[in-house]
C-alpha cells in the first residue's frame, strides 16, 4: 500500500511537469498580450531613453518571445522569481508571506466543508423519502445559488456590521504583534512559539472566510454522498449482506459507506481546486493578506512579474491537491490499488 501510494505520488509529480510547462507557457504568452509596457512601468519616473533601453535589455525584453520565456523559466528554476513593479519588492517575499495564509484558509475550509457535507449527506440519506430530506434539499439548493463572494459580503453585513460578533478585516487584530516566522503558517507558528493570543486572534479572523468558502462545498458533498449511498444500497452485495442477517447499521457503516465514499472523494479533489479560485474574492473582501489579494492587486496594477508567478503558484496548488486526493482515492479503492 505505502509503496503503491508513493509510486502514484511520484507518477503524479512527473506527470505534473509537462502540465506545468504548458501552464507557464500559457501564462507567459497571455501576459505578453497585455496592453501595457512593462519596461516603462519598471522605471522610476523621469528616466531617460537610455535608461529605458538599459532596462529593456536587463529585463530581456529585446529578445524573441521563446528566448524570453526561457529566461523566465531558467531564472525561476534558479530561485529568482523577479521583482514586483508595484511593491518594488522581490516577488518571492510577497508569495512567501501570502501563500501560507491562503493554504491555511483552504485546508480549514476543505475540512469544515467536508465534515458538514458528510454529516449532512448521511442525514439526507437517513431521512430519504421524508419531509426532512425535502427541506434539506431545498436548503442546499438555496445555499448553492449564493456564490462564495456573496457569502463573504453577507457574512460581513450580518456578523460583522449588523451584529458585530467576529472580526472581518485581515488576519490578526492590529493590537496583536506578529510572532517570529518559523513556517509562515500563522497557526503553526503561534503554537510553536507559545503565543495563544496570536492563535486566538488568527482563528477568530478565519471564522468568517472559512464559512464563506466551505458553505458552498458542503451541499455538493451532501448531494453526491446521498445519491451514491442510495445507489450503493441497491447493489447486490448489500442485498446479500442483508440476507446473511447483517444488521442495517453495520451494512451502512461497514459495507455501504466505504463504496459510497469513492465519488465523494473525487468530488472533493475537483472542488478543492476550485476553492483556491474562490479564495481570490473572499480574501479580497476580508482584506485577508493571501495570494488572492496579492493577485487582484497585481492585476489591477498591471504588476506582471507578480501576476505570472502567482498564477503559476495557483496551478501548483491545484495540481498538489489533486495528487493528494488521488492518493486518498487509491487508498480507498482496492480495485485501483491492485490493478
Amino acid at each position, binding site marked *: 500500500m505505502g509503496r503503491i501510494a508513493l509510486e502514484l505520488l511520484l507518477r503524479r509529480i512527473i506527470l505534473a511537469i509537462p502540465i506545468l510547462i504548458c501552464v507557464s507557457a500559457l501564462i507567459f504568452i497571455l501576459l505578453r498580450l497585455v496592453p501595457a509596457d512593462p519596461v516603462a512601468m519598471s522605471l522610476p519616473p523621469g528616466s531617460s531613453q537610455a535608461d529605458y533601453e538599459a532596462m529593456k535589455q536587463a529585463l530581456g525584453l529585446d529578445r524573441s518571445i521563446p528566448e524570453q520565456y526561457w529566461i523566465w523559466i531558467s531564472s525561476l528554476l534558479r530561485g529568482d522569481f523577479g521583482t514586483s513593479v508595484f511593491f518594488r519588492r522581490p516577488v518571492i517575499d510577497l508569495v512567501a508571506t501570502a501563500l501560507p495564509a491562503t493554504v491555511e484558509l483552504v485546508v480549514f475550509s476543505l475540512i469544515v466543508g467536508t465534515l458538514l457535507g458528510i454529516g449532512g449527506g448521511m442525514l439526507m440519506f437517513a431521512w430519504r423519502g421524508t419531509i426532512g430530506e425535502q427541506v434539506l434539499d431545498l436548503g442546499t439548493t438555496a445555499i448553492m445559488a449564493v456564490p462564495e463572494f456573496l457569502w463573504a459580503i453577507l457574512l460581513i453585513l450580518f456578523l460583522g456590521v449588523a451584529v458585530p460578533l467576529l472580526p472581518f478585516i485581515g488576519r490578526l487584530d492590529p493590537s496583536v504583534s506578529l510572532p517570529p516566522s518559523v513556517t509562515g503558517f500563522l497557526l503553526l507558528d503561534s503554537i510553536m512559539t507559545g503565543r495563544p493570543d496570536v492563535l486566538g486572534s488568527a482563528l477568530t479572523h478565519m471564522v468568517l472566510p472559512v464559512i464563506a468558502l466551505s458553505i458552498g462545498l458542503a451541499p455538493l458533498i451532501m448531494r453526491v454522498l446521498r445519491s451514491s449511498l442510495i445507489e450503493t444500497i441497491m*447493489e447486490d452485495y448489500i*442485498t446479500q449482506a442483508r440476507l*446473511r442477517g*447483517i444488521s442495517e447499521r453495520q451494512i451502512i457503516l461497514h459495507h455501504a459507506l466505504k463504496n459510497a465514499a469513492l465519488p465523494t472523494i473525487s468530488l472533493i479533489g475537483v472542488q478543492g481546486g476550485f476553492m483556491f479560485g474562490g479564495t481570490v474574492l473572499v480574501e479580497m473582501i476580508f482584506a485577508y493578506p493571501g495570494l488572492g489579494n496579492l493577485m487582484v492587486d497585481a492585476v489591477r496594477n498591471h504588476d506582471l512579474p507578480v501576476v505570472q508567478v502567482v498564477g503559476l503558484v495557483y496551478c501548483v496548488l491545484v495540481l498538489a491537491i489533486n495528487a493528494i486526493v488521488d492518493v486518498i482515492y487509491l487508498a480507498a479503492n482496492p480495485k485501483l490499488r491492485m490493478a
Partner: protein
Amino acid sequence: MADVLRAKNLTVSSAGGIAVLRDISFAVARGEIIGLVGESGAGKSMLGRVIAANLPGGFHVSEGSLDFGGADLTRITGEARRQLLGREIAFIPQEPLTSLNPVLTIGQQFSEHLARIGGLPRSAFREHIVQALADVRLRNPEDLLQRYPFQLSGGMCQRVLIAMAFAAKPALVIADEPTTALDVSTQATVVQIMRRLQREQGTAMVFITHDLRLAARVCNRIAVLYAGEVIEEGPAGEVLEAPRHPYTRVLKAANPVLSGPRHRLRTLPDQMPTVEAFARLPGCRFATRCPVADPACAAAIPTLREIAPAHFVRCSDACGERAAALVEAEPILVPPAADKGSEPVLVLEGLSKHYPGKADWLGRRKPGTDAVKNVGLTVQRGEFIGIVGESGSGKSTLARLIAGLETPTDGRILVAGEDVTRADSKARALRLETLQMVFQDPQSALNPRRSIDHIVTQAMEPTGASRAERLERARSLLAETKLSGELLERYPAQLSGGQKQRVNIARALCVTPHLLIADEIVSGLDVSVQAQILNLLLDLRAARDLSLVLISHDLAVVRYLCSRVVIMHHGVVVEEGEVDRVFGDPQHPYTRQLIAAVPPDDLDTPWPAPVAVEPDNAEGLERASI
C-alpha cells in the same frame, strides 16, 4: 421426515390486488431439494423475496402461510427474521461477482459472517475460513483471504458464497439461479459442490432455475411455475421425462438437445403475460398460449390435481389425448449440406488480433493479450457455422473483426473473394452489401430514440429513400421476421425481448446480406422465445440464400442450427468439424470438458462426470493479472 419449509396457499398480490403468486403450496424436507422452474416472469424468485421480506414496491403476502420450524415467515417481525437469516436460512445468489463487496477482502467478509453467526472465538476464524474455502475446492485458500472479489472469477466468487452459506449449517438454503451467470464448464463444478455440502449437512434446499434439465439433475422434486402459479409438480425425473401439463411439454420440446435426432423446436406464440395482464386472465393463465386450450379453459381456474402418485398438474386436460398429441408430428430437421461449388462467402486466413497491454508511467508495457490467434475459417454459401467458446475465448472479437468493427493485427479477411482486411472505403462498401451483424444485447443494439420502422430501414437513410419506400420496406421486413405490422411506430422500450431481437434481425436483413454474423443472439432469451428465434433463422435460410456465423456458448443451440462447428479457447481454434462428429466424438480435451459440463438428456447417464469438475483456480488468477 419433518418438513423444513412448508408453503400453504401462499398468495402474493400487487398493490392493485392482482395475485402475482397464486395459491402456492409445497414442502421441503430435511435433506431434500425442490426445484422451482420457470421462465422470466413466472414468479420463481418471488419466494426468496417473501422469505427475506424484500418484495418489490406494493407487493404483499395477501393469503396463506410459509411455515419454517414452527414460525410463519410471512408474519414474523423484522428482528426475528434477521436472526434467522444467515444462521438458519442461507441464500446463494445469481450474480456472484456483484454479490461480494468490492472494497472488502474475502477474509473480511467471511469473518464478518462468522462473527454474525457467533459461537466461534475470533482467534479460530482464520483456520475455520481456510478450511471452509478448501472444502469448496478453492486452491490456496490462505492466499484468497487477502484477495478482493474482483480478483476472482465468477465461479470462484460463487464457491466463496456457497462456503459462506453453508458455514452456519443452516436448515434451509435458497439458491436462486446459482449457475446462470457462470461459464458452462464452471456450472458442473458449482452444482457438484453445492450438492455435496447439502448432502453432508442434510440441508433442505430450494433450487430456483429456468433450466428444466438442470433442475431434473439437481433436485428431488420439481415445481414448474407459469405466470405465478405452480402448473405442475412432481418427482424430478418424472417431470422431465414424462411432463403432463401442455406448458411443460412444450417447454421440454422447445429446448434443443445435444444428442439424438433433431426435431424442429416446439414454439409457443407470444410470451408469458405480464403482471398487468394477469387481471385479464380470469381462468387458466396459460390458456391464451396453450396449443390445446378450449373455450372453457379461459373461464375457470383449474385445480391442482394429483394425476399420479405425488405428481400434480393444474390443467383440465392434463392426461387427455389433446395434450399427449403435442410432442409428436414435429418435422425432423435435416442438416443442410454446404454448397462447395461456388465462391465461399467468407474466408479467414491466419486472422489475429493482439491488444497491447497498457503502458505504465515509465512507458513499461504490460504484456498484451491475443484475443484472436491465427484463426482460419471458410464459410460456404448457405452454410450455417457455429463458433463456440466461453467468455474470454475471443469469439466476440472474431465477430467484430469479420464485421469490420475492429482491424486485425495479422491475417486476411476475404468477403466474396475480395480482400477486405484493410478497412478502407472500398472494403466498407463491399462488406455493406455482403454481410451484416446481429448484436447480442437488443437493449444496446436498438437506439431507444428511434421508432421500429426507422430502425429496420436504417440502411436506407443514407441513400435518401422516401418515407413511403421505407415504410413499405419496413412492413415487408417485419412480416419476414414474423412481427406484427402494428409495431411499426412503436419504440424499442415498448417491445419484449424476443420482439427486440427480431427487429435486430430485420434491420440486418434490410440490405439483403449473404452472410449474417450473430453474436450470442439468444443468450438473454427465455427458452420458448429462444425457440422462436432459432426457428426464424431456419426459415430465413430456406427463404433466402443466407449463410450464418453463429457465435454462442450453448452447444445445443449450435447443434440445432449449424452443420459445422468451431471450438475456440483463449483465442485459438482448438477443434473444428461437422457438428455431429465434434459433438459425438470430441478430440480435444477442452471440447470434451465443454460437452461434459452440459447435463445429458438421458437421466441414467451420471452427471457431472468426473472430467467436468477440474477445479479452475487458474482461470481466476488469470483475471487477476489483467
